[in-house]
């Protein structure tokens, strides 16, 4: 079972990342790569360090050791905004939507980083400002349809169901034209039908060229990944296709204590 650290075409590369909280070693020399255009899964038992790793990759936590490379560039010390602008977008286990803004406005905000009108231009309602607003509206509408949100576009995002909020967060990420979409437990709070729909959605997004890194407890969802890494007690203990992983001895021990 290879650890797959030298994947050619890695959009995202994690190199020897280690982190501890106090005396607790949460991550120990983690190495892995996410190939461009793939769906990659990251699984592991609770407390394995998945959230910490996600936070490090997305910029919410600087690692004590190791580097994160995105598209060849070292982004280890970059702030969250910089990573987002480079095309690395993440979602959260509890969807972080703008509760008081409508769903439509949530989607519109996803376009923000691509547009450039200044404050003064906005105040004067310059031509570029107006064109931008139309563009944002159009993209929001398109994303809303694609993600099945058309009916709730005008409702405050804080007032739709949890499942829909997750879709809003996803759609908002999609609108920002990400290169890598990192999904943190996207299936939590969804029933099996919705998980099935999410699965299809992810496959469609991937076909459009978006690389996906997926953390999930749900084996049915992780199944869409072409490659899965198993994180246990801070180290990658296995990687490969789902079928292989399921047969792996160490993985079975980690999950089942067998």
């Amino acid at each position, binding site marked *: 079972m290879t650890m797959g650290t030298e994947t050619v075409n890695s959009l995202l590369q994690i190199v020897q990342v280690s982190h501890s909280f106090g005396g607790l070693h949460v991550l120990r020399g983690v190495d892995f790569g996410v190939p461009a255009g793939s769906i990659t899964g990251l699984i592991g038992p609770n407390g394995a360090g998945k959230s910490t790793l996600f936070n490090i990759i*997305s910029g919410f936590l600087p690692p004590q050791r190791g580097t994160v490379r995105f598209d060849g560039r070292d982004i280890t010390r970059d*702030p*969250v*905004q910089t990573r*987002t*602008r480079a095309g690395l*977008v*993440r979602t959260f286990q509890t969807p*972080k*939507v*703008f*509760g*008081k*803004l409508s769903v439509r*406005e949530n989607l*519109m*905000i*996803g*376009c*923000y*980083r691509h*547009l450039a*009108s*200044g*404050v003064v231009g*906005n*105040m*004067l*309602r310059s031509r570029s*400002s107006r064109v*931008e*607003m139309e563009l*944002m509206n159009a993209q929001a509408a398109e994303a809303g349809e694609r993600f099945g949100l058309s009916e709730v576009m005008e409702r405050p995002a804080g007032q739709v169901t949890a499942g829909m909020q997750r879709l809003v967060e996803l759609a*908002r990420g999609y609108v*920002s034209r990400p290169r890598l979409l990192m999904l943190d437990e996207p299936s939590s709070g969804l029933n099996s039908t919705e998980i099935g729909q999410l699965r299809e959605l992810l496959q469609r997004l991937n076909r459009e060229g978006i690389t996906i890194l997926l953390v999930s407890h749900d084996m049915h969802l992780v199944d869409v990944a072409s490659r899965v890494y198993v994180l246990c007690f801070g180290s990658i203990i296995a990687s490969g296709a789902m079928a292989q992983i399921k047969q792996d001895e160490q993985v079975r021990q980690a999950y089942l204590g067998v």
Partner: protein
Amino acid sequence: MSPLRRALVWGIPLLVWAALPFVATRHIVDLLVFAGLYTIAGLGVAFLLGQCGIVSLAQSVFYGIGAYCTAWFCAHKGLPSPVGVAAGIALSTGIAAMVGWPILRLSGHFLALATLALGIIGQVLFLEWDWLTGGTLGIGGIPRIAPFGFAFDTPLRFYFLVWPIALLLLVLHHNLLHSRNGLALRAMRDSPEAAAVLGLDIHKLKVQMFVLSAALGSAAGSLFAHYVTFVSVDSFAIDRAISFLLLAVLGGVYTVWGPVLGALFITVLPQWLSRLGDIHAFVFAAALIAAVILLPEGFGGAIRNWWRARAAK
């Protein structure tokens, strides 16, 4: 809304506004001019609070800078009024950018108290640097705004100068709110974390808003100087900053025309209370407390909610 209705909704207040100074006493018109000046300065504080969640007690400093720049360039140097206004705005925005950059990384209480500290620093410096500001003796002889020989030298004339400017600024503010950056501000206010994840540069936006707010304060200060022709440090102390904050909160920071209501309140009320002596400061403070507890969206917000509830029936 039908064209006729629209014409009435906008036209009638416009007519009232235009006719008012001709039927009111000179004293009332004078108060209304101040209401206009405070609307402009208060707008700066209002959108900072409403859109960015920043409590600013530093507006009096920029108000003073605008006034003193006008005093310097127009009274001392005899230059035309646009120079004073421009100088004031340049200096105020420069200081706002320099000071704002570090302190706007602070949040919540720290930031509010930092702006209060700034207000006090400004107040003391205005007093200590009397070679610049004339200290308590002040600077007088500030010329009127007089383009092409038409001098805005009476309350009536100034009324028709200050209010169109104020209304124009309110319109610009409205445009900003409904633009991409306005949306970003609201998102930022709603969930800073989610905003960061989306690539919004929160800090830069806050600095931009702070600079804008300072520009408004400075413009108001310059106009103020041209109106009263004499400025001294007493006008730029912390209680001025408090008045601006008060009018913003009272008028409501979530509606575009809230500052107008707040400004009218704080100029008109002392009139009614003058019989009771120096009590208006206390009444203002009590009004602020009442507004915070009972009317968190201010008069403007309360009216808007009432209007919406009516429309829903």
